[in-house]
């Protein structure tokens, strides 16, 4: 799904969540190819020309998460927990680091040992970044979250300075393990880890079901 309509849905769910019309909700999505620039980012970190981006079909969007530029595309799982920080008893910084822990735990179930790096948020394998974090908080409710490179084509990262850092290495589960991993497998394991980390009781819902709640309350 393209980034902009996907984010519009996230904003509507956030509004409904803030009015207590929806419980804590975690949105899982894959986007079509896009460079997103966070609030501390700059277009100067795009190394490709506008023509080249058009030829490759990569959009560029400025978005309201923290952080600089990154790439999203098919094969990358984007996870946006819409939680109330008071419910999980964390402040925003602690929550951000807890998301990194979720990624580390998730990757360990695939036998991949990753770590956090001081002053470089995200999750790292050897010297390469495999998962990125970036959140926003409104009235104590969280949105945005983290992304994990599963089977993502990594070539577009060569067209940017990811997170504003030149020569940053990026990797994926596919690259490390040497074969594709079904996204459904990631989602199942992630479900268990999120339930445990945030003491949630979760069930899977389709966007259609959520949409019915949004429409019925005109949220």
């Amino acid at each position, binding site marked *: 799904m393209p980034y902009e309509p996907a984010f519009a849905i996230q904003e509507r769910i956030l509004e409904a969540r803030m009015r207590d019309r929806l419980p804590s909700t975690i949105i899982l999505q894959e986007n079509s190819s896009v460079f997103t620039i966070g*609030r*501390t980012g700059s277009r100067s970190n795009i190394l490709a020309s506008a023509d080249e981006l058009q030829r490759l079909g990569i959009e560029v969007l400025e978005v309201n998460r923290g952080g600089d530029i990154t790439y999203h595309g098919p094969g990358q799982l984007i996870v946006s927990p819409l939680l109330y920080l008071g419910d999980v008893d964390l402040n925003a910084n602690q929550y951000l680091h807890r998301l990194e822990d979720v990624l580390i735990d998730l990757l360990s179930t695939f036998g991949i040992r990753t770590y956090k790096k001081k002053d470089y948020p995200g999750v790292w394998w050897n010297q390469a970044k495999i998962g990125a974090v970036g959140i926003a*908080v409104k009235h104590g409710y969280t949105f945005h979250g983290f992304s994990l490179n599963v089977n993502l084509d990594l070539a577009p990262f060569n067209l940017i300075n990811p997170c504003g850092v030149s020569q940053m290495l990026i990797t994926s589960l596919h690259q490390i393990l040497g074969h594709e991993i079904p996204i459904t497998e990631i989602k199942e394991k992630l479900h268990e880890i999120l339930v445990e980390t945030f003491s949630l009781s979760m069930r899977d819902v389709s966007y259609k079901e959520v949409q019915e709640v949004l429409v019925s309350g005109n949220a």
Partner: protein
Amino acid sequence: MNYDIVVPPTADGSAEVTLVSWIKEVGSPVKKGEDLAEATTEKITLYVTAPADGTLHEINVPVGEKVRVGQVIGVMVG
């Protein structure tokens, strides 16, 4: 009545954040809970929201400055 506009205490109490935008201008009517400004750390965007219905009366901190959690950055009149 005057209401202080405060950077929300959702981040670590010692955290310094950068004010990146004022979403409303001085004189704008705003509803309680509406977004007034955005502040950001490296990976966290915090929304500063209206404490009451009223008008944005005063902006004390310009875009680009560092602010602390809990700091008053403007005033609303309700």
